[in-house]
């Protein structure tokens, strides 16, 4: 599975080797779903596979996201129908997320919002729906829906994870629109209200980044040993332009 970052978040997470912050949750969810025999999950997965093929075909033949015959629209409707016919289950969550993701893909943002509005505050799909809403917000450069939705969920959800993630998303959204004061406030709230969670850890990292890792600030100093056994430090590269690549073999 690809490990490219999707904007600031991991787009996909299928490997628990190096996951950071709140992506851990997503990975564990997927992992758990993959290890249990679940016929409904297989069925939804087969739908997802076919919808991907259709989307590829459509795109290859020159189709544009906003076209009325975008197969993502038909598939989104099918996934939503699946959701409505089936009680809550991991497969229902997957179908819900897929329905919304495909609406985003097809640039149907108002429809996406309408459907997201029908999800109850404690719907298990929220954890992944936030990723879809963040992606839609980034695309339209309009974070107001995401922020108001997250504010509401932070109040009304009873699931602690959903509340923490909502607060985290508020911080992330404000950070993206460079409202660092509000971003700081939201991340600080995650740290104090949800200690010990992956969100708190990620929020702490973001608070440090807002403070110390801006362009033009000195890069944090480090001293390590390379895998060949040579000492290496940031100071040793003074006078050189340095590229740091964080990566993994997975």
């Amino acid at each position, binding site marked *: 599975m690809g490990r490219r970052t999707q904007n600031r978040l991991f787009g996909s997470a299928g490997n628990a080797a190096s996951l950071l912050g709140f*992506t851990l949750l997503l990975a564990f969810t997927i992992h758990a779903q993959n290890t249990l025999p679940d016929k409904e999950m297989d069925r939804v997965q087969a739908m997802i596979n076919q919808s991907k093929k259709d989307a590829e075909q459509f795109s290859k033949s020159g189709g544009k996201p906003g076209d009325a015959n975008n197969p993502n629209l038909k598939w989104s409707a099918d996934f939503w129908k699946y959701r409505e016919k089936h009680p809550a289950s991991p497969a229902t969550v997957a179908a819900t997320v897929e329905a919304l993701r495909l609406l985003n893909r097809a640039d149907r943002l108002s429809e996406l919002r309408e459907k997201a509005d029908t999800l109850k505050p404690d719907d298990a799909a929220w954890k992944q729906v936030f990723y879809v809403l963040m992606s839609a917000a980034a695309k339209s450069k309009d974070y107001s829906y995401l922020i108001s939705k997250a504010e509401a969920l932070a109040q009304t959800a009873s699931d602690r994870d959903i509340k923490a993630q909502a607060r985290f998303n508020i911080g992330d959204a404000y950070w993206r629109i460079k409202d660092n004061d509000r971003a700081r406030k939201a991340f600080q709230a995650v740290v104090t209200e949800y200690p010990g969670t992956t969100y708190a850890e990620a929020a702490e990292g973001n608070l*440090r980044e807002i403070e110390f890792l801006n362009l033009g600030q000195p890069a944090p100093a480090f001293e390590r040993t390379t*895998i060949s056994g040579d000492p290496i430090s940031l*100071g040793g590269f003074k006078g050189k*332009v*340095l*590229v740091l690549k964080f*990566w993994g*073999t997975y």
Partner: protein
Amino acid sequence: MGEVPLLKELYAKYLDQGVAVVGISLDDELKPLQEMVASKGMSWPQIHDADQSLVKLFNVKGTPTYYLIDREGKIAAKDIPIKKLGSAIDELLKK
């Protein structure tokens, strides 16, 4: 791993112009890292960040993530896609 050939190209192009590359691997195990570095012919230094302390220090949220640091040790770019890395390096070298 489609990015490795691109980075190798950049590395070779800028090697004599005062540009260094350092890989920081998030792998749990050292062995696959050593094997891939050898098999792909990555000749730049590699740090095995097994305890993720550098990941924390630079608040890295996913892989791959690139940081670009200027001659004075200041952050010139972060989360930059590899396709934009070459022109960002060119800008820094002009200074």
